[in-house]
């Protein structure tokens, strides 16, 4: 009960902070949607134009989407009773159990790679996060037999990881605010953009990618597992 109370308080504090920042934040520095595909590499140092738009030009919108998933997973983690899951009661065969045990680490590594290389190749935080959550969901689907559920991580650990990633995302935005730019600004803050195409490029974009990836992955895994457990 104290844990749920603490989670509730931390979640509401984050939500309040996000709301205030949205109200006070980026009213300056509006960018007209003219030639994103021409300017992205020069402006942000990221090759992937979609990631550049998501995490540089329109980072505040991404924060809003992340808040939606955050709120949904928070509510589901509180409200869903942890009864025995009816859909998970079917036993799959031994072949699938061993095959998944062989296959699952590759899926996880691929998800992490999609997150980390999000600004130089297709993918990014959301895609890699959904890959991570799909690996968690496959684990829960395959290895939960007969009413007792088995997870990769306990639910509270998922919740804490998600909270921490949300906190990192919000606090990374303050770098722009403290160095004279707007909230979640990237190139204005003086962070070196690096060589376009290498792993360490794009300023804040890889960090925001990693934070979003963990947040989305843990949040969606939490939502789907809560729906399984009804």
């Amino acid at each position, binding site marked *: 009960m104290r844990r749920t109370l603490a989670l509730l308080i931390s979640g509401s504090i984050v939500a309040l902070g996000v709301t205030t920042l949205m109200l006070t934040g980026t009213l300056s520095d509006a960018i007209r949607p003219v030639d994103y595909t021409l300017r992205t590499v020069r402006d942000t140092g990221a090759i992937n134009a979609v990631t550049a738009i998501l995490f540089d030009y329109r980072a505040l919108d991404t924060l809003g989407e992340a808040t939606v998933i955050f709120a949904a997973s928070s509510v589901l983690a509180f409200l869903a009773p942890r009864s025995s899951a*009816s*859909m*998970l*009661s*079917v036993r*799959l065969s031994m072949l*699938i159990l061993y095959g998944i045990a062989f296959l699952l680490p590759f*899926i996880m590594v*691929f998800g992490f790679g*999609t997150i980390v290389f999000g600004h130089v*190749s*297709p*993918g990014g935080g959301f*895609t890699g996060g959904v*890959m991570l959550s*799909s690996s968690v*969901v*496959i684990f829960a*689907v*395959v290895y939960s037999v007969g009413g007792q559920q088995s997870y990769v991580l306990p639910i509270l650990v998922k919740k804490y990881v998600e909270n921490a990633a949300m906190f990192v995302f919000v606090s990374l935005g303050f770098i722009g605010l403290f160095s004279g730019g707007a909230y979640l600004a990237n190139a204005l803050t003086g962070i070196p953009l690096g060589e376009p195409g290498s792993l360490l490029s794009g300023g804040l974009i890889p960090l925001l990618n990693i934070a979003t990836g963990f947040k989305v992955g843990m949040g969606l895994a939490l939502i789907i597992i809560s729906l399984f457990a009804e």
Partner: protein
Amino acid sequence: MVVTVVTALAAVVRLMLGPSLVDRIVAGSVIGTMLFALILLFGLLLDEPMMIDVALVYSVLHFADMLIYAKFLGRHRGFM
């Protein structure tokens, strides 16, 4: 490539008139794998190796879908 699309169309017809649920799921999986091959062929023709990442993601999600369908099938007896 044209052959791939035509065979995918054939699989769509099977998806439409497949009498049982298993046939529909099989047709869906056939279309998924054919489009996986089609994406690889697009990468080969357009000379963009980035497409392989898309195909990999595709394959993994396809697999997750098939597992969830299998769970659903195993749960509902007499559903066919």
